[in-house]
């Protein structure tokens, strides 16, 4: 689906992947994509967010304040292991006693993440990208730009949606701003 992406939109995807890798995350979520949007200079998505007075620093702070989602589903694992009479917290405690804090959840098997440099998209991020295509089609655009990616994230679910909506970003208003901005660009 990336063949319709503009150069800037592709850059966002690449930067989101880099961000996920640097953070040792096992999937690209919408938070990585949102951070990446701000990292690409002079793009429409950031202009739209400016229209809502949403600034990079606010978004960074909001994202940082959210508890990291356990990439390996360790909460679900804890429940499953409890069913076998294994207390994951106790295992973790004993391991950390011997090896120090975080010994059990240091980034695992970096080679698996590094092969081909490929980190998969999380479910919500994939969905948001699909929605960005839908937003583009809706506006009769034959490309997907950063503005459509932003609309896709506002439209969809995930951390980016939560952060943006909490900051007052509304989908219908955002669509109008995008169309206004594009008109301005075409005119000038």
């Amino acid at each position, binding site marked *: 689906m990336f063949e319709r992406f503009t150069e800037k939109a592709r850059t966002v995807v690449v930067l989101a992947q880099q961000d996920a890798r640097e953070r040792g995350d096992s999937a690209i979520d919408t938070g990585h994509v949102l951070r990446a949007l701000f990292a690409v200079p002079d793009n429409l998505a950031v202009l739209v967010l400016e229209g809502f007075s949403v600034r990079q620093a606010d978004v960074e702070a909001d994202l940082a304040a959210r508890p990291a989602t356990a990439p*390996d589903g360790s909460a*679900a*694992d*804890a429940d*499953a*292991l*409890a*069913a*076998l*009479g*294994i207390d*994951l917290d106790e*295992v973790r405690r004993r*391991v950390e006693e011997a*090896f120090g804090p975080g*010994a*059990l*959840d240091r980034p*695992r*098997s*970096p*080679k698996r993440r590094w092969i081909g440099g490929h980190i998969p998209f999380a479910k919500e991020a994939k969905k948001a990208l699909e929605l960005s295509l839908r937003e583009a089609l809706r506006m009769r655009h034959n490309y997907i730009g950063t503005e459509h990616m932003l609309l896709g994230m506002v439209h969809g679910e995930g951390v980016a949606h939560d952060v943006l909506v909490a900051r007052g970003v509304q989908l219908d208003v955002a669509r109008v701003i995008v169309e206004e901005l594009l008109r301005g660009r075409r005119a000038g």
Partner: protein
Amino acid sequence: MSEATDVAAAASSRDPAVGLAAVAALRRLAESLEELQVANARAQGWSWQQIADSLAVSRQAVHKKYRRIVS
């Protein structure tokens, strides 16, 4: 509830979703512990052969799996 009754409950659960999730979680925990312990063993100067013997796998298997993560 005691551990024994918990285990009995899980073992007697005929719900595949419960049983299989427990197996998968156990495998992930074992993988994490294995990686940690292999790194520890290497850090303490163990040879790949010694590690392989302790894990009851071949030296090639353990070396292939961990050489990139553990020096």
